[in-house]
């Protein structure tokens, strides 16, 4: 296997070296920044036109980043609310057995829970990483321009409008199916949710296409695909994986939508054994969900190189790891693995299926190898000042370990909260990766260091501790036997729904409620996870505020900072 090798960071001049050097130049000579461009064009500030009609990839990327950070905060808050509801159940704080505290009824709870997961994927992680890719990749490959800048702008607006339709329709009673059958009352809202999701995905796919084409087709002379920077390589792998994974979601949505409108007889949404959410939830579960974290690996490598000033021990290793990560996270083929009672076609339980276990074991091995490889650099750094790399790596390792644990048969954790923990770990890892990337390239992105160094550290610590708290607590609950958060336990028992019947079949008898009847440990763990998520939300809030304020900065304010200082402090 000879995968592309990343260029060595030695004194010998390579194009990568040049690019890096160029990126560290002050604004006066080679101003790649947005602010610099606006200043060059003689504009005083951002106008509506420059936001709505721009063809500047940095501005488009920045819009992606800022909006997805805001979405991240909102999603985290939604997660906190969901957990508060959960705690309320466990402490029996509700007025009566079936009523809810935050959400009116179980159906609402379910819809919000699905929204939480979907928005983390489509409104937060993907756009955040795409935004980062759009801004950074052209300068990394010496292109200075995206392949299809207008398509990139179209992608942004398509994403934004699709996301708006999606969120608003969920709030208005739609959602990806529901606990109860989809009724004529909410068919329209559900349809809008589905179509909004499709539109959101289309926007993101278009953006991924633009990025992939840029990487393939617009590299500078002398830069073969073999020696592109790690982040670029990881974005190429990620874009291709996204481009081959998410169309399957769109196909499913088309099928569901037509079924929903084609009449009750054949509707997928309302028939007894199939539910909309069950047809789509494979993207929120391993292995497909790992695809969201592919660029994170690239960012880790970039940070390591930048921090150490040295190449990795084996130049091609990083590329291989990233590629492998991409291979393994292709998950569309597993999409209805779980249909019909989590049994395989042979009637075996899925958890015992080697085909299902294998990827995760390999995954774990790959990540472990990666960590070993990096650790050599990390510990030999002149100044160990690498919170981002460390935290990012930690979250990824957590996700992988949990993911592997989840499928190993002896533990029987497949439907436990550890699934949620894997998802959350990846989500937080993705966010940390993006934050790390934004801080690392903030000069290219915003013309300034995004946040003061101390604030930067605080945010990262918040995200890391919050993330670890969140995922660790969930994982522990899972190990202790808690059910997946698909449903609140009692709802699962009481409500006749396609979902509950399945959950009931396998897990409810041995679940959470029985094991921790008083709910004390469960409540504590849930509380811990809720706290963790709150910390993440706080970190995201700080980050969003910083991003927003930076977004509107004028060139004059920027020049107050000395770029060289900024760069020194961030590296």
């Amino acid at each position, binding site marked *: 296997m000879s995968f592309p090798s990343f260029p060595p960071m030695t004194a010998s001049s390579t194009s990568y070296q040049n690019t890096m050097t160029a990126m560290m130049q002050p604004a006066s000579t080679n101003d790649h920044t947005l602010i610099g461009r606006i200043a060059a064009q003689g504009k005083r500030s951002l106008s509506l*036109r420059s936001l709505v*009609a721009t063809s500047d990839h940095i501005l488009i990327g920045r819009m992606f980043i800022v909006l997805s950070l805001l979405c991240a905060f909102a999603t985290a808050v939604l997660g906190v609310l969901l957990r508060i509801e959960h705690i309320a159940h466990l402490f029996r704080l509700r007025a009566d057995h079936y009523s809810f505290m935050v959400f009116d009824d179980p159906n609402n709870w379910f819809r919000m829970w699905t929204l939480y997961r979907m928005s983390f994927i489509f409104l937060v992680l993907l756009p955040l990483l795409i935004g980062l890719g759009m801004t950074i990749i052209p300068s990394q490959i010496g292109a200075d321009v995206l392949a299809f800048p207008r398509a990139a702008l179209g992608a942004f607006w398509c994403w934004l409008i699709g996301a708006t339709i999606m969120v608003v329709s969920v709030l208005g009673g739609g959602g990806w199916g529901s606990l109860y059958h989809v009724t004529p009352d909410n068919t329209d809202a559900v349809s*809008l949710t589905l179509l909004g999701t499709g539109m959101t995905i289309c926007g993101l796919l278009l953006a991924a296409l633009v990025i992939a084409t840029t990487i*393939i087709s617009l590299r500078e002379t002398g830069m073969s695909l073999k020696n592109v920077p790690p982040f670029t390589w990881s974005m190429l792998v990620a874009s291709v994986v996204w481009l081959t994974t998410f169309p399957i979601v769109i196909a499913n949505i088309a099928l569901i939508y037509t079924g929903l409108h084609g009449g009750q007889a054949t509707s997928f949404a309302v028939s007894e054994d199939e539910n909309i959410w069950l047809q789509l939830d494979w993207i929120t579960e391993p292995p497909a969900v790992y695809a969201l974290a592919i660029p994170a690996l690239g960012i880790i490598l970039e940070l390591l190189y930048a921090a150490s000033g040295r190449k990795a021990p084996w130049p091609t290793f990083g590329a291989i790891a990233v590629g492998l990560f991409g291979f393994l996270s292709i998950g569309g083929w597993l*999409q209805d693995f779980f249909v019909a009672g989590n049994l395989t076609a042979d009637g075996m339980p899925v958890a015992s299926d080697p085909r299902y276990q294998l990827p995760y074991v390999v995954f774990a091995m790959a990540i472990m190898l990666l960590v070993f490889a990096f650790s050599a650099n990390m510990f030999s750094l002149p100044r160990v000042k690498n919170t981002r790399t460390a935290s990012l790596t930690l979250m990824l390792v957590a996700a992988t370990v949990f993911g592997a644990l989840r499928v190993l048969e002896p533990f029987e954790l497949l439907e436990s909260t550890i699934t949620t923990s894997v998802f959350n770990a990846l989500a937080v890892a993705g966010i940390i990766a993006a934050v790390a990337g934004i801080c690392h390239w903030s000069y290219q992105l915003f013309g300034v260091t995004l946040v003061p160094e101390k604030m930067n550290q605080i945010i990262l610590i918040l995200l890391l501790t919050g993330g670890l708290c969140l995922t660790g607590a969930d994982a522990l609950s899972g190990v202790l036997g808690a059910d997946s958060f698909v449903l609140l336990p009692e709802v699962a028992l009481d409500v006749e729904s396609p979902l509950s019947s399945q959950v009931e079949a396998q897990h409810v008898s041995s679940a959470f409620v029985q094991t921790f009847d008083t709910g004390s440990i469960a409540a504590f763990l849930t509380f811990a996870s809720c706290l963790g998520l709150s910390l993440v939300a706080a970190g995201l809030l700080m980050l969003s505020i910083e991003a927003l304020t930076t977004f509107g900065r004028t060139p004059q304010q920027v020049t107050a900072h000395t770029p060289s200082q900024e760069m020194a402090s961030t590296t």
Partner: protein
Amino acid sequence: MFTAGFKFFFKLFVVLITAAIVYGYTSGGNHVGPLSVGWKGGVGDHTGYGILLALATVSLVISLALIAFRDADAEAQAELLNVDRIPIPPQRAVKASWWPTVSAFGIGTTVIGLVLHPAIFVLGLATVGLVVVEWTMDAWADRVTGDTKANRMLRNRIMAPIEIPVLGALAVGIVVLAASRILLTVSALGAVLATSVIAVIILAYASVYVAWPELARKFIPELAILACFVLLVGGVLAAIKGEREFHHPESSSDSTLYETDTDDASETHNPIDGNIDENHSGISDTSSVES
């Protein structure tokens, strides 16, 4: 030799095709089903197998394309263009454009219309169609020559004759529609007064224009926009309120008024078998109508 992109995608292909076959067998395939795409024997879970196979196909195609293009390396492309060093279009070569944004709004409108109302759907589709046309022409015009001024002119030469008359017709249509709504809503006397006032305003403005052309010219756009806005708002309000009651005088709509002449007329005005005598009575008929 083998380029990096080819290697990645080809390995992806190998992995996926292997995975597809393994999956095909382990999920219940038999004979050579998974090897022959289900030609002989079964493949077990069709979904997983099919998707893996599709992914493998795509990987293979991309890998082959990439090796054919030498990963689209700059050197390969420069060779294609017959230049030493590949040029990269400058950032601002692609002008700012509203159309991507408008297209996204159009798609959004289409999606909402698909669920809510056909009219919204059609509006969305029309927007998308408009965008396709305009975007195509912009993309063409941006790169038709190396002279940006000429490009703009060339674009306008093709598109302005379509855009301006259509927009103009649309604008005139909206103005007429709005005015008609207003006049149909206000009372009969009000309609007369409204038109009179408007006429007076126009006359006054024209007089001002004649007397102080420079002064008046300054305010032409502002006044026109204001007038259109007022008209539009009035039209919308009037449309919401609905038309006033109309009293159709029943007698005037049918021919009772002329009933006495009908017999004569039908006979006399038949030039096929007309003769002089009857034509004389035709004259009297004409005079009676006049009187």
